[in-house]
């Protein structure tokens, strides 16, 4: 147990960070309250630095998680993108309230301030993603997934004082609860069909079932239900319907968060669940078929949906749905190329998608945050930097070589073709082509169109999100230089050590002796 705790040090750091943020948010000292985002960033940086130290210290081959090396890559990814996400939210929460207090118009009331909670919840949600990698049984997995989701419901609600945000939060919460129920039902059926909750033991049971003529139906249904519950987290069709409304309702910074963190969590959880079956002999036909349909629907509905939008946030929301579809190709393809591609893609997507939303987060027009496409017209005159970042991040999301996004897509294509999923690749190619329409529209509006005549011109009002957008764009351009090491790390993350599987009966005896 002590060994397991050792690897949870990054999580503990973030947990401590969450406590400090929560308390710091209700102090009387305005200087502290205004620097909550900074405090959260410091803890993220410490956690990020701690990961290589922690993982460099001990050998993990004896661990009981499905993919023991996964934590290293995921924790670095989550803390790094988390840092960008915190900066994207910089100066957003409590902005007006703090200003009113500063001007002496209002008095500080701990009940009304929400910056502390916001950052604490953000860190907790990131902790959840990290914990998923350490899951050794279904209960842990479920709790970690809920730790990812529950904070996000509140974050949507407190990100903006507007009705749309409240509505988005309610929708998100109720549908999220439904998906959690589906997932739990699936877990229950998995337990019923294998008699255990421990992932390694489930693997052993599945191996036995496959030797005796394939997985039992109960197990397949359980797996499908669990995956369907998780599709909600990655916003894949048919569980994607909430996404556009929620993404539009929340503040852009929170939208960026929703488009990355729960998606990463869901993707990792799906991969962990599927790895109990294993890809070696091919996934069971029912599950592969279901994933195939989901991937195709997600790619097509996501891209066509984005095409029809008039709101930039909804457009990017639909585009992030489509990206889940691309990633599912890698999930279907399986190790080693497919999963490697998924993790590389997740990282690249996380950075560039955050950069795109951060550009939106930095802008306002007529005193409101920008939302509609028209607001972006002629952005290059107001801020060439914001326009260029928008163009680069959209170009990367579209996959224009040599930007970073292209390499992610190339890896997914290669994985799909290597797995013989030619039909999926054709769908991916066609839907990528569709996506060119709306990404070009965003690029064109930002860089080429002339501004709208009526109303005020769009301007940059928040500096931190703009900085994130610029950093993201720079990574999108220079990123391919570190692609090689990223691919190596992703490959290590999914390696499964060559150890004997612990049979259920054996482990029971061991348990009996020790307890």
């Amino acid at each position, binding site marked *: 147990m002590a060994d397991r705790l050792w690897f949870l040090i990054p999580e503990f750091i973030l947990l401590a960070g969450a406590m400090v943020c929560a308390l710091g948010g209700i102090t009387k000292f305005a200087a502290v309250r205004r620097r909550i985002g900074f405090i959260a960033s410091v803890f993220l940086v410490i956690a990020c630095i701690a990961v290589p130290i922690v993982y460099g210290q001990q050998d993990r081959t004896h661990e009981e998680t499905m993919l023991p090396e996964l934590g290293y890559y995921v924790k670095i990814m989550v803390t790094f993108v988390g840092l960008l996400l915190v900066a994207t939210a910089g100066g957003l929460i409590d902005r007006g309230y703090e200003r009113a207090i500063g001007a002496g118009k209002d008095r500080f009331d701990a009940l009304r301030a929400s910056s502390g909670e916001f950052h604490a919840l953000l860190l907790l949600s990131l902790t959840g993603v990290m914990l998923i990698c350490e899951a050794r049984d279904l209960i842990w997995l479920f709790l970690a997934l809920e730790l990812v989701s529950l904070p996000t419901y509140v974050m949507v609600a407190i990100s903006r004082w507007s009705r749309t945000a409240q509505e988005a939060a309610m929708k998100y919460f109720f549908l999220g609860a439904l998906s959690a129920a589906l997932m739990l039902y699936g877990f229950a059926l998995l337990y019923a069909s294998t008699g255990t909750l421990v992932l390694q033991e489930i693997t052993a049971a599945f191996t036995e079932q496959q030797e005796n003529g394939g997985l039992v139906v109960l197990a397949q249904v359980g797996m499908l239900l669990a995956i369907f519950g998780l599709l909600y987290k990655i916003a894949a069709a048919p569980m994607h319907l909430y996404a556009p409304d929620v993404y539009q309702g929340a503040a852009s910074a929170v939208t960026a968060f929703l488009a990355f963190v729960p998606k990463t969590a869901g993707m990792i959880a799906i991969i962990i669940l599927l790895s109990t079956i294993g890809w070696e002999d091919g996934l069971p036909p029912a599950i592969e078929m279901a994933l195939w349909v989901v991937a195709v629907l997600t790619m097509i509905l996501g891209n066509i949906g984005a095409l029809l939008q008039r709101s930039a946030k909804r457009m990017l929301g639909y585009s992030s749905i489509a990206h889940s579809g691309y990633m599912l190709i890698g999930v279907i393809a399986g190790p080693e190329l497919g999963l490697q591609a998924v993790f590389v893609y997740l990282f690249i997507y996380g950075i560039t998608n955050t950069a795109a939303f951060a550009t939106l987060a930095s802008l306002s027009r007529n005193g409101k945050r920008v939302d509609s496409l028209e607001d972006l017209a002629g952005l290059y005159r107001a801020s060439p930097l914001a326009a260029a970042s928008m163009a680069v991040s959209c170009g990367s999301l579209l996959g224009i070589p*040599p930007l970073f996004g*292209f390499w992610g897509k190339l890896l997914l294509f290669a994985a799909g073709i*290597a797995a013989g999923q030619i039909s999926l690749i*054709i769908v991916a190619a066609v839907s990528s082509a569709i996506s*060119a329409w709306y990404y*070009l529209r965003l690029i064109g509006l930002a*860089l*080429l169109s002339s501004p709208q005549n009526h109303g005020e011109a769009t301007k940059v009002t928040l500096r931190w999100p703009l900085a994130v957008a610029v950093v993201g764009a720079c990574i999108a351009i220079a990123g391919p230089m570190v692609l090689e090491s990223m*691919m190596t790390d992703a490959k290590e993350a999914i390696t499964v050590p060559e150890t004997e599987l612990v049979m259920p009966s054996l482990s029971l005896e061991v348990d009996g002796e020790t307890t």
Partner: protein
Amino acid sequence: MSPWLLLLIPLFGAVAIFLTKAALSKWISLGVSLFVFVISILMAVQFEQWGSIGTGLRSETSWINSMGLTLDLGADSVSMMLVLLTTLLVPLCVWGSFSAITSRRKEYYAWLLILETAMLGVFLAQDLILFYVSFELTLVPMFFLIAIYGGKNRAHASVKFFIYTFTGSLFTLAGFVYVAWQHSQTGAGGWSFAIHDLTIFASTQLSSTEQGWILLALLAGFAVKIPVFPVHTWLPLAHTEAPTAGSVILAGVLLKLGTFGVYRFVLPMVPEAVVAWAPLIAILGIIGILYAALICWVQDDVKKLIAYSSVSHLGFCVLGLVALNPIGLEGAVLYMINHGLSTGALFFLIGMMYERYHTRDMNMVGGLAKSMPVWSCFMVFFVLASVGLPGLNGFVSEFMCLLGTFVSTADAGQWPGVLGPKYAAVAALGMVLAAMYLLIMVGKIVFGSLKEPDTTDRGSLPVDLSIREIGILAPLAALCIWIGVQPTILTDAMRGSVEKVLSPYPELVEKYRPENTTPIPVITPDSPTPDKEDQHG
């Protein structure tokens, strides 16, 4: 000299432009592109592979070992010629834009230089993915050149251009990756994207069905770029809306990326599929020749006319490519260069006219021989080069393409083919039509009584061409004459490369000879085919 110089100098030039004042940008880009031209000439002089099959100018850089991605560069004689064409056209385009571009100058010249890097990358890449990256990267600068500096309908034109080419090339990428994956399965040490290895692998190891699919995937990208009927519709729009330099580069180099792709990948990689599909591709080429020529006939917009004439002309190039004999293929490669020179010059001329009269409508402008004699001289000259007047460059390549098609019959001795006189006869109609529409155009705008529109506003430009404008056209005209008189210098230089591409074909054409067109039965008792054995068994 390292070929990287050719790619990096324009890129650094583009960065330099962003860091300096807008007024300097045109001089920087002219200097940089001329410098690149000089370097490429020096490289061409030192190039040892003229006429042989080898690849020179090699530079090997490993990049991502686990996927076998490299940054290898190199050029054979055909790539080297296209590199020279590119490095020649870019400084001319920069020089030609001095008076036309007045706003957002920095970006304009920077995009032109980035475009040069991308185009040279296509010709120099020895790695499939590097080729694809460069191929796609050409879209971005061109998209902005059209979308920012284009005509009234520029937004639509640029998006259509981007989507058409982007969609097509995604399938090309899938085809490439498929070949690379099949190659990695053979146990040759994991993934590799080296063009040389994959070409040998695909042409020898893949079944004809697989080759057929790969052919379709590759052509999806290249046919759009060439463009072949029926995926040519982006071209007239993009050409018409693009600024002059954009049109010149589009016609001069970007369309050649498609034919170069066919030459470098389709022909050597999937020979069996090419033999099977060549008649269909040729028919599409011929439809393109005739259909576009007929459209040209009824155009009033001069620029649109020249744009459609590109579709028609490239049809000859396609015919030459699938003729599967050295005459046709050499003709096709020569056509790539000639079309770049003469059509590029025509776009320059139209741009110069437009800058003075602000219209391209043939009914509004006419009789310019009276007001612009020098311009008219060049116009007539390049139209004749384009029509194929013997003695000028167009004639040589067009004739070679047609001759290649004509002799590409099943029993044509050393180089049997799958086309024949029928194809050549129909395609030759295109030459007649080309003469008609181009001469009608010349008749309308150059001769007759002087007609100047109300929109005439020459700005600071002289009535007839300035020294700068003559300086742009003169080298192109000189090259047209030189190639017209001495085409053998170029055809000899490319022979090794062409014969290497064609080497598997004679055998394959024999193998796939359809029985109904062969006077002599192919199957002899001495060489029983597998089918026959099956029948006996």
